[in-house]
């Protein structure tokens, strides 16, 4: 058994068999072989070793002839490794004694060797690791032969373990069978995190290197609530987690009937519970949970994974699907919110030392007007199909907001000239996620139809903490009084002006904060669809008076830890059946 600590990016607990993805997308289809098949399997192993050996020898000869003897030396080394007598007896024993499939035995054994080398820090030793992986891949290629399946052809549930997942890799995964993700790198904003949340499966990222220690088919537990990954769990750990999985299932079943009940407090104050989505199909998850609308429709996926800029038609297809499905209910579309480094078709930016403080989001949009206009045109066209709102991200100054609105007005004029239908009075709002915008919020509320507080970035910018940096992620805390004061200021300004104020960061989907936020005057929550039942549940158990009392108490406290533990206690009193996660 081995435990890894990473960053929790998508909640839930799942236990299952692993699919280890490397750059060739290999998978180990079967872990065990039947007793009467053992001789045949050993034979298959021997043939694969022989075939791989011939291949390496041919490479060695060709390279030596072409480039000289010393260049062929590495293939000679591979060949000798492959013919290592102890390696062979270890592999054979695994098949004969433990009934492992040759594929699983090869992967387990060679990864164990890789681990020996990887423990060493010097770089030339790391090079040996790639030699071992090279041999592993070669052997697997011969063992799996033509049966090697594509990731899109998965036929049984798996947990995907990878160094990093790219949009094209996740695009090829068969959604039906992927039950969880773990990646060695990445942070809360990584592609893996977004996709996992969209698929509503547990995910942990940023664990650091571990792939050498795991083979396809190994049993793994992903604890997406606490950012933990357990490789090859012992029986006790397994039993504990099985119990937890069961509890989560029971709770979900208990919350199911809430679906058709309104989101309102015990004293009858009606609230709006909205969904955060990234992919058009998630709109179905919103409908399933009885969402009052889409509070945050992220549009980044349109730009990722494609080498060319998305056309207006691609934008329009995606938006119209969501808008049509939601019908009368509002859909808030957030414009482009990425850094230049993530967009393949944009010129690579100057080296950014602080990408979060760099050219991204609305700043990038305003510097790439044709791209920005394409998106705005598509959003406006979709606005005629339902109830659309437009939201600009990362607005820091009034000037920026006015510029963005001017571009929008210009696009509207253009559409009008061409007689293309759109909603003329489409509500325009902004994300409040930069402390500067909070300080100027009284001016901003005069110029927008709504605001939405993005706590993920607001916390990061206020506390000067990069939450994808494992060394400081412990300092990232939405319960910090400085953050809460900024949230309060924003809610107060919006309420004074009587414009809707929404909160769409992860804080919104964590039921521990619900009472506090209600007490601060928030009446709209935008959360990932999977979090909706729990948020609705807590809302329906409290009164506004109780929440006001909680908020008053919290706003007088001076550190995040006290606030967190007080809120945890208050939550537990109202919803005793739910455990409070530490996240």
């Amino acid at each position, binding site marked *: 058994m081995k435990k890894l600590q990473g960053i929790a990016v998508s909640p839930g607990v799942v236990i299952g068999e692993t699919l280890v993805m490397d750059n060739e997308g290999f998978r180990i289809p079967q872990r065990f072989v039947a007793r009467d098949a053992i001789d045949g399997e050993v034979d298959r192993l021997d043939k694969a070793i022989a075939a791989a050996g011939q291949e390496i020898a041919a490479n060695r000869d060709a390279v030596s002839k072409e480039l000289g003897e*010393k*260049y062929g*030396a*590495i293939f*000679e*080394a591979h060949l*000798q*490794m492959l*013919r*290592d*007598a*102890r*390696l062979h007896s270890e592999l054979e024993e695994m098949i004969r004694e433990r009934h492992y499939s040759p594929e699983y035995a090869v992967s387990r054994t060679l990864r164990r*060797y890789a681990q*020996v*080398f990887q423990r*060493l820090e*010097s770089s*030339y*030793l790391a*090079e*040996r690791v790639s*030699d071992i992986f090279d041999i592993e891949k070669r052997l697997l290629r011969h063992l799996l032969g033509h049966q090697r399946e594509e990731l899109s052809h998965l036929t049984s549930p798996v947990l995907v373990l990878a160094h990093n997942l790219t949009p094209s890799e996740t695009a090829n995964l068969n959604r039906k069978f992927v039950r969880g993700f773990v990646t060695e790198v990445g942070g809360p904003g990584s592609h893996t995190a977004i996709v996992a949340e969209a698929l509503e499966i547990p995910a942990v990222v940023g664990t650091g290197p571990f792939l050498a220690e795991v083979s396809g088919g190994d049993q793994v537990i992903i604890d997406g609530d606490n950012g933990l990954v357990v490789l090859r769990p012992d029986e006790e750990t397994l039993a504990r987690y099985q119990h937890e999985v069961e509890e989560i299932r029971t709770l979900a079943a208990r919350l199911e009937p809430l679906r058709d009940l309104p989101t309102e407090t015990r004293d009858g104050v009606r609230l709006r519970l909205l969904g955060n989505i990234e992919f058009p199909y998630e709109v179905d998850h919103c409908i399933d949970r009885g969402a009052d609308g889409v509070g945050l429709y992220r549009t980044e996926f349109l730009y990722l994974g494609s080498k060319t800029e998305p056309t207006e038609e691609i934008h329009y297809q995606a938006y119209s699907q969501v808008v049509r499905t939601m019908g009368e209910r509002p859909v808030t579309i957030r414009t482009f919110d990425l850094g230049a480094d993530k967009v393949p078709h944009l010129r690579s930016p100057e080296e950014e030392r602080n990408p979060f403080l760099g050219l991204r989001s609305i700043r990038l949009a305003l510097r790439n007007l044709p791209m920005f206009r394409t998106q705005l045109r598509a959003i406006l066209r979709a606005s005629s199909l339902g109830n659309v709102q437009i939201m600009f991200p990362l607005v820091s100054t009034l000037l920026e907001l006015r510029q963005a609105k001017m571009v929008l007005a210009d696009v509207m004029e253009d559409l009008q000239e061409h007689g293309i239908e759109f909603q003329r009075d489409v509500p325009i709002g902004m994300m409040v996620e930069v402390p500067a915008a909070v300080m100027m919020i009284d001016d901003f509320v005069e110029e927008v139809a709504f605001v939405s507080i993005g706590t993920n970035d607001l916390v990061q910018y206020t506390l000067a903490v990069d939450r994808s940096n494992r060394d400081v992620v412990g300092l990232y805390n939405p319960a910090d009084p400085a953050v809460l004061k900024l949230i309060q200021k924003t809610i107060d300004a919006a309420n004074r002006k009587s414009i809707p104020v929404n909160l769409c960061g992860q804080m919104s989907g964590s039921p521990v904060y619900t009472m506090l936020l209600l007490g601060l005057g928030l009446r709209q929550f935008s959360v990932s669809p999977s979090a909706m039942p729990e948020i609705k549940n807590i809302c329906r158990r409290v009164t506004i008076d109780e929440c006001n009392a909680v908020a008053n108490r919290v706003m007088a406290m001076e550190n995040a830890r006290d606030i967190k533990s007080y809120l945890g206690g208050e939550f537990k009193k109202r919803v005793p059946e739910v455990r409070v996660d530490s996240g």
Partner: protein
Amino acid sequence: MSDSKAIRSVTITNPTGVHLRAATLIAGVVRGFDAEVVLKKGFEDAKGTDVLQIASLVAELGDQVSLEARGSDAERVLDALEQLFAENFAENRENTEEAKS
């Protein structure tokens, strides 16, 4: 005499340790003689012809490795191996990094 035995100890002096290519060279030397060789570092051992095992000893700069030979060429194979270690696996003559790339 086919059962003659010899033991010697060498200290690793090349900065990159007994890497894969060095292990290949060791195995190459051992195969040229009529003797069985075992390399030992601490509690771990490796047959002189098993490249992966030799590399897995992870013998690094400054480590001591004992060489045990058995067979009619026992002394001669150790002479040859000692020379190989002393020459830092010929790294001075050839650029290893280049050879690996």
